[in-house]
């Protein structure tokens, strides 16, 4: 594992988005988005529903191609034609629905699509897959009683961790986490956040998509807030407090206006 100096801003970003936009016909889902993902850093992308978070991930994950601007991987302009293409260049995405088959065992899921095989008959090397899977999970502090268990019998946090461990093991350099804590309880969220820190310390560039500023502020190094397809805030952790982030995320000015409006309506109501 490489030791990464988190303070070193000098190292070049692995993945760089410059003025990236995406239009579906005449609908501009994303406009002029800039994003730098550095090794050993957690970049948080926040935004309300419909802010363009999903479109942004889909571009980076290779599901959609951007229509404006440039995306650079290691300084070279690139486009990903498919999720497979993005994966082979070291960009792994852990989707909200986790990409785990619920009734398959832990180790079968871990190696799904990348099965290890041996011998002239190319049969599955089950012993080796189980061993590696167990080692990788233990290394990240995930306790699974039995690797033959179907993943459906595990908790949401454990499943999230398996998906993340798998992405790391298969050589991801940039890992995109789509709302990893959205469906989890407080304790499970904690497990996943700890895991995100471990992934960062392992030298990965982490993109954390979330609408929870509290979770983002706990682990993030860099924050980008999207609103209606545009970047409305782009700040490093030391330039920002949790309060500012929460206010920005909640809509700041809009929220204040909404407050006035509601109070006004309330008074109207009382006057009647």
């Amino acid at each position, binding site marked *: *594992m490489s030791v990464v100096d988190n303070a070193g801003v000098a190292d070049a970003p692995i993945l760089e988005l410059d003025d990236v936009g995406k239009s579906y016909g005449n609908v501009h889902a994303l406009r002029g988005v800039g994003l730098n993902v550095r090794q050993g850093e957690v970049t948080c992308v926040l935004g309300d529903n419909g802010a363009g978070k999903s479109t942004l991930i889909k571009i980076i994950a290779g599901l959609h191609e951007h229509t404006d601007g440039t995306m650079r991987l290691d300084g070279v302009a690139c486009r990903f034609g498919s999720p497979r293409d993005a994966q082979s260049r070291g960009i792994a995405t852990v989707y909200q629905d986790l990409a785990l088959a619920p*009734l398959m065992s832990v180790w079968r899921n871990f190696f*799904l*699509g990348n099965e290890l095989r041996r011998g002239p008959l190319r*049969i599955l090397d089950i012993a080796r897959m189980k061993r590696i899977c167990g080692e*990788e999970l233990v*290394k990240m502090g995930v306790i699974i009683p039995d690797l033959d268990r179907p993943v459906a019998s595990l908790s949401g946090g454990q499943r999230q961790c398996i998906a993340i461990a798998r992405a790391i*093991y298969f*050589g991801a350099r940039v890992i995109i986490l789509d709302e990893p804590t959205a469906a989890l309880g407080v304790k499970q969220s904690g497990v996943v956040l700890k895991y995100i820190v471990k992934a960062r310390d392992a030298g990965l560039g982490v993109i954390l998509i979330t609408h929870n500023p509290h979770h983002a502020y706990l682990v993030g190094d860099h924050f980008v807030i999207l609103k209606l397809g545009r970047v409305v805030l782009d700040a490093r952790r030391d330039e920002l407090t949790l309060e500012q982030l929460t206010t920005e995320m909640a809509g700041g000015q809009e929220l204040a206006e909404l407050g006035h409006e509601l109070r006004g309506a309330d008074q109207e109501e009382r006057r009647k």
Partner: protein
Amino acid sequence: MTAAATEPGRTEATRDDRVAGRSLAARLLSRPEVGSLVGAVVIFLLFMAVAAPFRNVANIGTILYGASAIGIMAVPVALLMIGGEFDLSAGVAVTTSGLSASLIAWNFGLNVWMGVLLALAVSLAIGAFNGWLLLRTGLPSFLVTLGTFFILQGVNLGVTRLLTGNVATADISDMDGFAAAQKVFGSEVALGPVTLKVTVLYWVVLTVVAAYVLLRTRVGNWIFAVGGDAGAARAMGVPVRATKIGLFMAVGFCGWVSGMHLLFQFNTVQSGEGIGKEFIFIIAAVIGGCLLTGGYGSVVGASVGALIFGMTQLGINYAGWNPDWFKTFLGVMLLLATVVNVYVKRKADLR
């Protein structure tokens, strides 16, 4: 990058002592085929007790023959169900295959083997068509194959009547190549008092090969994955389309084996045959522990399901019971098997 990504051989990570395995009993009970094995033993003991001819060793061949006729199709149907799809056209497709071989050879005066080979092409094409249409339209396989079921049923009757003026194909037993083809698809071998049909061999071989593919190869992993969560499988780079079409074609291939047996056993094929068989195949697969929703099941279980079918079918006759009730018995078996499977699975998973 983590070190293990480059050195998978390292074993320095110690096993966590909290990682306890489940007991052997729980592991065995959580296998999908357990319900069917228990059922098979119960049915076997039942008929051993009540039906005297069932105890006659010579009848083993007859029972296994009945089981093999279902088993050859139950195996690929189980694989398909694990892969998350149905094939309601499987029963009629067997007839289509037999008819094709016979009609092609007879109508064009070809060597029987030419008919056999072209029938294979027809069977694989039907499977590929089912899979292609399913993926193309995104409709549930229940609907797509229900469509094929009716189409084939009509084609079987229509084409046969068109070419022969009859509802069955002409006897082809005097044609070139018939004797050799009959050896391959319709022969039997005597082992002491037991006479075994060649279909029993095919059934066993298919079961072993399919179980091996499912549990020990990459393709098997893909089958479980496309049935369990096709979206997840696609995201992990599994070729979902190819896997599903391949499964439908496997059903086609086995339908061809079955159809050829039908042809060379009776020299002629009735065009109306095979209707309703598709449900028997599905019942065998479900008794064997396959979930209707896909992603879970066993090939061996499906074969045991076919064995239960064979034993019941003959056992009822041997016991002198009224065979009118056979289908009722089958329905009860299906419900019992499903309930037992769900119950056993829940118990075992909790341990």
